[in-house]
């Protein structure tokens, strides 16, 4: 580990070391500047914080609880495993924290229309929810491939009053949904806020989104002290764009005794060409407005990613993670589809909790890590979302549903 003589918790962008920045069309610079300024003002305004905290208490269900999972932990080398239950939030994942924060900012700058990209549909559902709550128009871009594997969330968004637009360009997954959302934003920036769903994108998104999700780790740090009398030895999270991971890591960045572990989707294997293990296998480049690790060929063309989990199926990652990896403060490791699905099933069967397949990557990582660290270790896991949306995928995977999604007799 590198010597950390100054706080790592105060990075304010646009750059995190050599990562981050703003590589965007001039047409969007004014909107990004407006957003950065509105966010700075909100940050200094106690009324904003009170409003956001009240929404957290009365709408999201904050603070989310900790659940210790001893039966699951037996498979993790006997380490103590404790889940931070973001799956219990309203709308079913950590995404709602960022969405409510940005929706309040959008309202402060007079925007009446929210647009979002979504992969698993969790961010789209959260955005559609906030739009309904605040009486705003909502359009969600979702790769056509993802609208098929996350059909239930498409229905949820439509019930909430959002328009869901299947994206047919490029590879028809999350990265193309981001492209399409940026295109919409360029054309409609006057009345529209682009509610980006993770800690990626151009400045100020990586810092702003991080600030809205860091409550996860702030709560969990205190809850761990209350429950166990000590800080955990390790904190684990899955990493797609990186929002739930930075959310739970951030409060622990200066606690050098706490190891931070992000688990990337390795799909069919990090050494195959079907994975989304961006930090493990990628190299630095510019994608979607910031410099970070990304999956790309020699010419800088973005490569297709693959994961059984739509929410992790993204060839980029937030710049703050790239920086934490580069300075050695956090570790990023690959978890295959198969490992994640086995961990998914294990948590269902040992603890009665159905996790999102995204979060199951963190659980699989925790199993590996617990075996490494041994029975004296305590591991805090970000359970970023619940698995209702994934029941069909898992049902097929474990052969309890047929190809049509009907129960096998």
């Amino acid at each position, binding site marked *: 580990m590198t010597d950390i003589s100054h706080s790592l918790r105060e990075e304010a962008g*646009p750059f995190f070391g050599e990562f981050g920045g703003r590589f965007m*069309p001039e*047409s969007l610079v*004014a909107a990004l500047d407006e957003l950065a300024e509105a966010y700075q003002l909100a940050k200094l305004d106690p009324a904003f914080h009170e409003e956001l905290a009240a929404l957290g208490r009365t709408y999201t269900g904050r603070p989310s609880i900790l659940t210790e999972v001893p039966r699951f932990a037996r498979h993790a080398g006997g380490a103590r495993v404790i889940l931070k239950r973001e799956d219990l939030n309203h709308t079913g994942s950590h995404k709602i924290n960022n969405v409510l924060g940005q929706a309040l900012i959008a309202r402060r700058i007079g925007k009446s229309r929210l647009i979002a990209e979504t992969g698993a549909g969790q961010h789209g559902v959260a955005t559609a929810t906030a739009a309904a709550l605040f009486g705003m128009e909502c359009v969600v871009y979702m790769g056509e491939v993802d609208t098929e594997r996350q059909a239930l969330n498409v229905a949820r968004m439509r019930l909430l009053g959002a328009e869901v637009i299947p994206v047919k360009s*490029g590879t028809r997954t999350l990265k193309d949904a981001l*492209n399409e959302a940026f*295109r919409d934003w360029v054309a409609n920036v006057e009345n529209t806020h682009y509610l980006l769903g993770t800690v990626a994108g151009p400045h100020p998104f990586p810092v702003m989104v991080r600030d809205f999700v860091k409550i996860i780790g702030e709560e969990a740090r205190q809850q761990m002290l209350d429950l166990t009398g000590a800080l955990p030895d390790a904190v684990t999270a899955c990493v797609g764009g990186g929002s739930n991971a930075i959310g739970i890591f951030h409060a622990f960045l200066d606690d050098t005794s706490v190891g931070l572990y992000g688990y990337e989707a390795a799909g069919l294997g990090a050494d195959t060409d079907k994975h989304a293990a961006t930090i493990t296998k990628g190299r630095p480049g*510019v994608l979607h407005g910031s410099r970070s690790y990304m999956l790309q060929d020699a*010419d*800088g063309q973005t490569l297709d990613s693959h994961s059984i989990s739509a929410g992790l199926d993204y060839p980029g990652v937030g710049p703050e993670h790239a920086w934490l990896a580069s300075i050695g403060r956090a570790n990023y490791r690959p978890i295959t589809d198969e490992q994640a699905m086995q961990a998914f099933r294990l948590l269902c069967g040992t603890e009665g909790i159905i996790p999102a397949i995204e979060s199951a990557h963190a659980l699989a990582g925790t199993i590996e890590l617990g075996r490494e660290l041994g029975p004296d270790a305590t591991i805090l896991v970000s359970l970023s979302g619940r698995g209702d949306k994934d029941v069909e995928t898992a049902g097929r995977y474990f052969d309890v549903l047929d190809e049509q999604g009907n129960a096998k007799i």
Partner: protein
Amino acid sequence: MSDTIHDVTAATPSAAESPVARTIAAANAGRAGAFVGYLPVGFPSLDASVDAAVALVENGVDVLELGLPYSDPVMDGPVIQAATLASLQGGFRLADAFTAVERIRSRVDAPVLLMTYWNPVLQYGVDRFADDLASAGGAGLITPDLTVDSGADWLATSDRTGLDRVFLAAPTSTDERLRLAVENSRGFVYTVSTMGITGARADLDAAARTLVARLREQGGESLAVGIGISTADQIAEILGYADGAIVGSALVKALADGGVAAVGRLAAELAEGTHR
């Protein structure tokens, strides 16, 4: 982001040294202004894209803008997305862009700019990319997702090589940012006609006229308007206040639908707009 703004006091090669700026100035002396034509490299094939670019120049295009196909073209609409995707699927490699420039330059005498998103340049190496482009006879780069304040490395490299650098100006840009674009662009300032992505539009925004006037106030001398232009009438209208008119999607569509002959015919038709 002002902390990242490049020091612009360094000597910047003047417009007189830019072949693109000279060509645009000459077009304004003899006609209403310059016609800038866009086509992507490698669509429908590398050979055909070279032939099509040559056909543009033979039919009245003054400055060529060759698009470098990229996997994530956020500033482009459906027509250009489809063409650049086809080029990538056809096996386009970055080095093909230099080949195309070289072959076009050996056949016609019009300056050729590459329009490229930033990551391919970054991965190839900014210096190496610039050197290879200069050796191929290219004039410079148009950078849709690289602004002056994020482009310190490109400003340095383009000064070293003397390549043109075309930055964009948008209707929403502040005066301060327009000044940055004017002071740092060489060749022309790409004046974005409307808030939106590439693609033909029936009506041109009044925003373009206003933006050109605002750029003039900041000292802009070589201003080309682009995005949404598809008819000779629109070109004539734009050249009434700007120095150049850029046509992209309409030409790409003609090439996709009717091949090299069709794109040549459309260019000749559009070039009429520069004579009024």
